[in-house]
């Protein structure tokens, strides 16, 4: 494989966890709920995915379980943020801490134990294409799933009535309510589905990317996903681009390690995603002011009487 195909393959592999989590966050935020619990949902998803894979050896079951635990955690956030109208930022951060703590606590006995490892799933014919065939179509199944999720998210938000309702709940819940849209239910659904994707994102790490369980396996990717959502202007396809960019930066690290080619010092490459995340989040308010953030983002909705 030439360098380009190798780098492309690494980029795709490294982007998928953040891509799934970012799509989940896009959905949640388009419905008006900020969920900063990404890191916690991913870690719990990673652990539960690993555990179910370890116990059953069934990858589909492992991913489903990881998604469900992500949904449950997201619903906890939803209870505080949507039902009780609590501060969404605080509730999300609490969820991050809870998920991380819980995963570390439960996973203590499993560190270093080899679990299920989901291998590659080349698509016939396409993967035999010259140059990029193997890099793009010789990936594991989750890469295809994540790309399909992205397209589905774009389609659902922009082309379906449900997506219109989700966006209305995120932009102006009062108006949405006046037009008969079930604001509370829609927000809960979006948050739960978003959590499902985050849980799957975590399982991708522990079953595909770096199989096995270790503490802090997500290494801040949940936060990077949040930054990508803001940077992408709350758009599914934008989030795909952002995730690929993040994946590319990660891939460069592996690439320079593997080839010994140190044009940019490795430590710079390592910190780059985090620096960009911090910068994005610092300017989040300014980016939001450019009118791209959903107008009702972070605002609880109650019917006034």
């Amino acid at each position, binding site marked *: 494989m030439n360098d380009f195909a190798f780098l492309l393959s690494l980029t795709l592999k490294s982007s998928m966890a953040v891509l799934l989590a970012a799509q989940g966050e896009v959905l949640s935020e388009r419905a008006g709920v900020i969920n900063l619990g990404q890191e916690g949902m991913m870690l719990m998803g990673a652990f539960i995915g690993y555990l179910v894979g370890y116990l059953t050896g069934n990858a589909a079951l492992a991913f489903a379980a990881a998604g469900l635990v992500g949904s449950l955690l997201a619903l906890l956030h939803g209870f505080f943020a949507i039902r009780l109208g609590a501060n969404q930022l605080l509730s999300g951060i609490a969820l991050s801490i809870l998920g991380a703590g819980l995963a570390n606590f439960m996973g203590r006995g499993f560190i270093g134990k080899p679990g299920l490892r989901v291998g590659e799933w080349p698509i016939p014919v396409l993967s035999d294409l010259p140059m990029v065939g193997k890099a793009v179509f010789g990936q594991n199944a989750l890469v295809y799933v994540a790309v399909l999720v992205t397209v589905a998210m774009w389609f659902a938000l922009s082309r379906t*009535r449900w997506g219109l309702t989700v966006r*209305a709940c995120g*932009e*102006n819940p009062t*108006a949405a309510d*006046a*037009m008969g*849209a079930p604001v509370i239910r829609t927000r809960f659904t979006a948050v739960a589905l978003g959590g499902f994707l985050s849980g799957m994102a975590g399982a991708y790490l522990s079953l595909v990317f770096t199989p096995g369980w270790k503490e802090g396996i997500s290494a801040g990717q949940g936060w990077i996903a949040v930054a990508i959502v803001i940077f992408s202007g709350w758009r599914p396809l934008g989030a795909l681009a952002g995730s690929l960019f993040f994946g590319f930066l990660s891939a460069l690290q592996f690439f320079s390690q593997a080839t010994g080619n140190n044009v940019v010092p490795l430590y710079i490459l390592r910190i780059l995603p985090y620096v960009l995340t911090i910068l994005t989040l610092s300017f989040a308010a300014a980016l939001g002011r450019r009118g791209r953030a959903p107008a009702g983002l972070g605002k609880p909705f109650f019917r006034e009487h």
Partner: protein
Amino acid sequence: MSLNLELVNITKRFGPTLANDHVSITAHGGEIHALLGENGAGKSTLMSILSGRYQPDVGEIRLSGEPVRFTSPAHALARGVGMVHQRFMLVDAFTVAENVCLAAGGSPLLDLKAEAARIRELSDRFGLDADPDRPVHTLSMGERQRVEILKLLRLGARVLIFDEPTSVLTPTEIERFCQVLKTLRQEGRAIVFITHKLEEALELSDRISILRRGRLVAHTTPAEAGGKRNLARMMVGREVIFAIDKPAVEPGPEVLRLEGLTGGGDPARPAFSGVDLALRRGEVLAVVGVAGNGQTELAEALAGLAPLTAGSVSFEGARHEAKAWAAAPKDALAYVPEDRHHEGSVPELSMTHNYLLTRLSAFTRGLLLDWTGGAEATRKAIERFAIKAEGPHQPSGELSGGNLQKLLLARELSRLPSVLVVQQPTQGLDIGASEDVWKSLLEAREHAGVLLVTGDLTEALTLADRVAVIFAGRILGVADVSDPDQVARISPMMAGVRQ
């Protein structure tokens, strides 16, 4: 059976306030019905009942003869009764078509092209001139209103209710809106619009119902109304209902003088202009007018909350130019705003907190607030003003409107101001609370001149020594309350007639 919507004997109570008291009106298809009344007269409550937002305590709604119960606005709309709120219910980031689609429901997949075609068709038929592909945030207020109408029509509304439809429109847009209403009438829809503008009711409507203090006081037509003057009289009520003891107070020196005062609103179109008024200690000067004629802005500007562009204010022996007034020291000027729940107080904070809000300097010891003293002062105020409350610790948001108003008055009077500006002090209050408030205002004359801004003529005549009438931002005249001839000129002036 032909289209009509009847409200029969509707009564609605909020706590101690009777918002609607056995009100019956009927809207007919092919007619425009104006619901006229001052702020707080109960118009909005009535229309909220009609559109399904509130349930009446007593009474019933009949749609073409059949009794109906609307449990929500969506339910009312499903039966063909829709409301255009003063604050438009549109998603700004969406296009017109997306907004209509959101309200209209339909297949799971969006078909915005088909929706756009339907919108164009309705838009042409009713002369609404709406472009389905434009995002709402790029539309003017008038255009947004037409989108709201379009939305209702798309959902099959046959009865359309408008809450103060012209309040956010420019004069050209208003003309446009009138055209739309006439088209709707021609198409057989029933239209009800809430307004406090007399001209509109007379020019546009086929029937006029007048609400005052929650009761239907008159039911008429533009032809029978006897002109603007008579309509104004019916709307604000002229008769003095309550005789309250008004001890004579010797007028003292002049405490406030306004000369050529202009301001409020945007600089190109000031809300009031060329206002000349003088106020002496010991007197009550009422500024009356139909809502929206600049009196609110005038009071706010005096409190330093709205901009002044020209003229001067003389206060406490110093003459301040218009632009310098906002920053001038106003310790001796007390202000009680119209919105006592949100502007005059912080509902979540305790009564003590609220009491201290405008009295911080008096209750500060070094860097610390004197909470004990503050609570004590609040307790005394509760006693002296007979405020019904659990105690100084109770959140002020839990107080009834009358008790809250008394707390605000107690607070402002404790500052011993030389000028007291009050806006609509008894709006929404019951009779008992109103009388208490009136007594406090009369007592304030001991040390202050009182500027009373009110839309309630009864209140003005009960309390004031002189009544200034404001119309379209100008003071049309000042009447001496002791002279019946001058008092008789107040109503016409409120309708803009100068004699």
